[in-house]
């Protein structure tokens, strides 16, 4: 496996397509596209696709381009790991994206190191979630969703949902930081597995929303 992950960036922003490689020197940007359709028309081999959640498409182009969960599914059908790159913070929206097959979520406001770390982890098959999804994991677990978390995983998720630092969590649970991160990663995988096997309506009900309240099927 190459040291530098090969990344395709799909984002309707010209600035992000042009500047992504400069801002993230630890990844190898092998292609940038404004839409999923253009990537499908001229694909390149890559380890991870960095995907903007909301794609407007080129001006004058077709009014409806694949985006959101449809875009994720199109890329997953090609066997490509997808890491979302978005400012969307609503946990249920992000949860439905994980359900559609995304492996990770990074906010555009996060520092470059977070994105580079997320790309590396997604390439290794790990699940990368944002703070809002950590809160959602705790919420789903407390409301009886079948995530099957162990008590340690539950403790780590509960602490991370409260924003506690890794060193603090490790100290209070008498484990190493690496062990705490392993519990966390395992809980994130369980979240993704749960989401993949649960209908959108059930997910929305589990968090107290009516079906379709947040994001209708595109």
């Amino acid at each position, binding site marked *: 496996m190459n040291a530098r992950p090969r990344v395709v960036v799909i984002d309707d922003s010209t600035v992000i397509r042009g500047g992504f490689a400069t801002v993230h020197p630890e990844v190898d940007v092998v292609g940038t596209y404004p839409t999923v359709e253009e990537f499908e028309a001229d694909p390149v081999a890559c380890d991870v696709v960095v995907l903007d959640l909301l794609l407007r498409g080129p001006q004058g182009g077709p009014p409806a381009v694949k985006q959101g969960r449809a875009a994720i599914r199109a890329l997953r059908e090609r066997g490509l790991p997808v890491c979302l790159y978005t400012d969307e*913070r609503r946990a249920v929206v992000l949860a439905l994206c994980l359900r559609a097959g995304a492996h990770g979520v990074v906010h555009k*406001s*996060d*520092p470059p190191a977070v994105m580079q770390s997320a790309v590396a982890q997604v390439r290794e098959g790990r699940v990368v979630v944002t*703070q*809002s999804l*950590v*809160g959602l994991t*705790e*919420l789903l677990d*407390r409301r009886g969703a079948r995530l099957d978390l162990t008590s340690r995983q539950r403790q780590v998720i509960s602490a991370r*949902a*409260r*924003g*506690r*630092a890794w*060193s*603090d969590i490790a100290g209070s649970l008498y484990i190493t930081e690496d062990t705490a991160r392993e519990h966390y990663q395992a809980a994130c995988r369980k979240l993704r597995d749960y989401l993949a096997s649960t209908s959108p309506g059930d997910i929305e009900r589990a*968090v*107290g929303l009516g079906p379709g309240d947040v994001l209708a099927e595109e």
Partner: protein
Amino acid sequence: MNGTGPATPGSAARGAERGIALVAPAMRAVVLAQIALNVPAGARVASHPLAYAALSVTAIAVSLLLIVQCLRTGTARRGVWHGPDLVVAWAAIPAMNLLLPASHVVGTWEAWASGFAINVGAIAAAWLRPVPAVGHGVALGGWSLLWAASAGTTSWETALGNALTVPGYTVVVSLLVHHLRRLAAEADRSRDEVVAATRALELERYQLAVHDASSVLRLLSDEDTPAEVLPGLRRQADREAKRLRHYLGGELPVSGGGELTIGSMLATALEGFEDLPLEPAVELGAHARLSEDVWQAVGRAVTTVLHNVRIHAEARQVVIHADTDDDRWELVISDDGVGFDQRDQPLGFGLNTQAGQVLRDRGVEVRIRSTPGEGTSVTMSGPVMPE
């Protein structure tokens, strides 16, 4: 001299001194009246009437000057006539033996020196420290005993009894004056402590009132404050202005009449902090009900913590997490900013008082954890208010 602290105008110490400076001249005036009444009779039987009269007039004159001195200065502690007063008392005792017949030396007011000595000893206790005053009283009594015994006209028991009156009264007055001054000093100290505590309370009340407003004003006045922050700051400035108007009017702002839950509290407290990278996760605890004063105090604390985050933390993420088990609620605000070392960096007024003491006073537990480079976490928890 007795020294129990400065007697500032209006103080209890000053009042006590004035009281002593009134009682001492009054005691002397009584003695003077008795002397004045008996001087003519004494002069008639004195071997040297002129000398007797001169001594008596000197005693009266010195006493009058002492009385005026006490009344004018308002204290019996200082003045130039205390020394001459002692000299007259010590000189008058042998003079009675020399000037009056032996039969008049003991037990009469023609021989006024004994009565005068008792009063001089007692007044000396008002301007000498207790130990020197009692020592002087004992010496003066001994001096009186010596000359009374030398007259040979009475038993030694009677002479001793008369002589003991001098140190006896000195001890009584010394105790009284010392006690009075100590009480006055304690009263002044207590008053000073009350004044200091009141000032501290007022300062704290003022700090509570202006702490958040000062943060908002500082950012509004700073030309480097990003433009996107300004709309939120203006809304907060408007809210602070309303709160300060309530404060100036002596009324507490009301919560608005809605349901008093963690959710409604946060909806108000988070307003204007859109510039911060807030990550609210409050679904688990938003419905927990709070009493009105806890709702107010926790809301202020949340605002204060977020002002601190905005100014100091350089945070990439600020988690606001609420939870409840229906008996107790918990609210955590954690940032991943610069943090601080709790061992050598004391909490500022905002965290210590506004987010600490004010909440503890209302039964809310507060825990603050911070590590340099790993951010700061404030956890508040308290009982859920029953339906």
